[in-house]
């Protein structure tokens, strides 16, 4: 009996090693490809192990590409991600909090509207949003990317669920101490909502960092692009562009993977809490 268990245990482990290898392979492939002279890739095919042809030349090409255009994209992406996360958490948490702790007239209506926004994909109202952005002169700006999505219904829903579990006693205590309603929120509730903020930071930041269709429509000039849009503009079979594209792709996912490896459980909680499109 005991022997049988070890056999199936070894079998399972080997099977899982193969599956994990498949899962990690494309990332590894990208990394290896970025470390080889691109002309080899076309002539000899890509070797899957780093041989003596390994070189950082592509990375140096990337850094020099159009006076460091890549770093401009990178900083645009960081700026958009940070601003979107901060604003989205600030506003969404307040709305979710209000829906969770107060009983007020119209609460049901607000809740229904939130579910409606949650259900209807952005792609549908993309054209009028684009027209609106032109009218508001936010085309080709960071504000244009962020503003229409400054409130995240998933985030509101999550905060609402989270605060429903926190008792009224905290709020009553705050009122007796003479706190304003906003004081209660900022001084008492926000610290209690810390785990929810952690999970939502990861969810919103990931969505923002990986965002594609809307930034593709709004952003116009080369120096205003985010990483995914900038890299998309380099996609072609051309070897010279490939020299920039491959290291650029690697460096764009590296920070996420590193942060993930140090905060695995938080990441998993955050990304699964909202039913994000994987």
């Amino acid at each position, binding site marked *: 009996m005991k022997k049988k268990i070890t056999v199936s*245990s070894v079998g399972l482990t080997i099977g899982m090693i193969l599956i994990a290898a498949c899962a990690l392979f494309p990332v590894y492939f990208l990394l290896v490809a970025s470390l080889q002279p691109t002309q080899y890739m076309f002539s000899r095919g890509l070797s899957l192990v780093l041989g003596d042809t390994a070189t950082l030349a592509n990375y140096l090409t990337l850094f020099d590409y159009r006076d460091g255009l890549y770093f401009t994209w990178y900083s645009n992406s960081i700026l958009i991600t940070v601003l979107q996360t901060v604003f989205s958490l600030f506003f969404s948490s307040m709305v979710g909090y209000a829906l969770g702790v*107060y009983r007020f007239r119209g609460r049901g209506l607000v809740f229904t*509207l939130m579910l409606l926004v949650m259900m209807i994909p952005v792609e549908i*109202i993309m*054209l009028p*949003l684009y027209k609106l952005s032109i009218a508001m002169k936010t085309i080709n700006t960071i504000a244009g990317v962020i503003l229409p999505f400054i409130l995240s219904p998933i985030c509101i829903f999550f905060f609402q669920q989270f605060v429903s579990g926190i008792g009224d006693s905290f709020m009553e205590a705050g009122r007796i101490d003479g706190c304003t309603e906003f004081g209660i929120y900022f001084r008492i509730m926000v610290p209690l909502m810390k785990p929810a903020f952690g999970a939502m930071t990861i969810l919103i930041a990931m969505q923002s960092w990986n965002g594609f269709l809307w930034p593709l429509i709004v952003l116009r000039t080369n120096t205003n692009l985010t990483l995914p849009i900038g890299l998309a503009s380099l*996609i072609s079979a051309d070897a010279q562009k490939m020299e920039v594209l491959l290291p650029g792709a690697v460096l764009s996912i590296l920070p996420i993977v590193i942060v993930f490896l140090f905060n695995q459980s938080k990441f998993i909680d955050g990304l*699964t809490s909202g039913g994000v499109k994987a």
Partner: protein
Amino acid sequence: MTDKRKSEKKSIKSLLLYNKNFAPYMFVAPFILSFLIFFLYPFIEIVWMSFMKMEGFKNAKFVGFDNYSRLFNYHFGNALLTNTIFTVCTVVISMTIPTLLAVAVNSKLLKFRNGFRASIFIPSLVSALIAGIAFRLMFSDMDSGLFNQILHLFGGESIAWNMGYWSGTLMMVTLTVWKSIGINMVYCLSALQTISKDVYESADIDGASGFHKFWKITLPLLKPTLIYIFTLTIIAGYRMFTESYVYWVDTTPGDIGLTIVRYLYQMSFQRNDMGFGAAIGIVLLGIIMIINLIQLRGFGMFSKEKS
């Protein structure tokens, strides 16, 4: 006089800051504002636009249902078909494999469980566009491409993957499945971890086999999670855009990789036919609402959160 004004000022201040009947409206005001400007108004406008013939956003002319009747064309039919095939494939694969993997990484027989969970989850962190850059290379039409090399191993010949309908669809399905397995596995895993061990122990006493336990205990208890993944995957399937864009950046030759949102994008932003684009959007809305209704009617709202 000044006293009166002072007290008035104070009462306004207390109304704004201390009144617990008024405070919730202050908190939800940003949502209402953003809902009206960035949701309701665009929503009304898209319906209006779908009945107009426009050049860009100018020269709107009422054309009735003309844009809708134009939808009965070869390209849109292809887009609908591609989306449907793509969705069916991703639903089947992205539900079965993650369920099995979740059981595997939850099993005590497996060593290094956390390592496996992390490795399988990593693809879900990568954006479809960046992952697509790697998949493009692997699906290269040259003899040196990875999947062509694999074909050679089995005595096949090289394929121009992105030039065939089925191979093109396969490319998109592979990319999506690769990205979604990790997160779906984690959904299943968190549901599995809530199942008490006693259930399995009593099944052991009854002499149930491993397969029997999976079929009779695990799957029924996973049902709410699986329904949740099911809906998410279908909606994501019909919204798909990036997976198509990354493989066929400029055009979709012979409609390979043409999806609903891709068609909407082409017609509105590349051809400037905004009225027609709006009609495509309305059809997409119809599809999404049918899926949502089935989810609400059949399974109750947000079954995952409730469970």
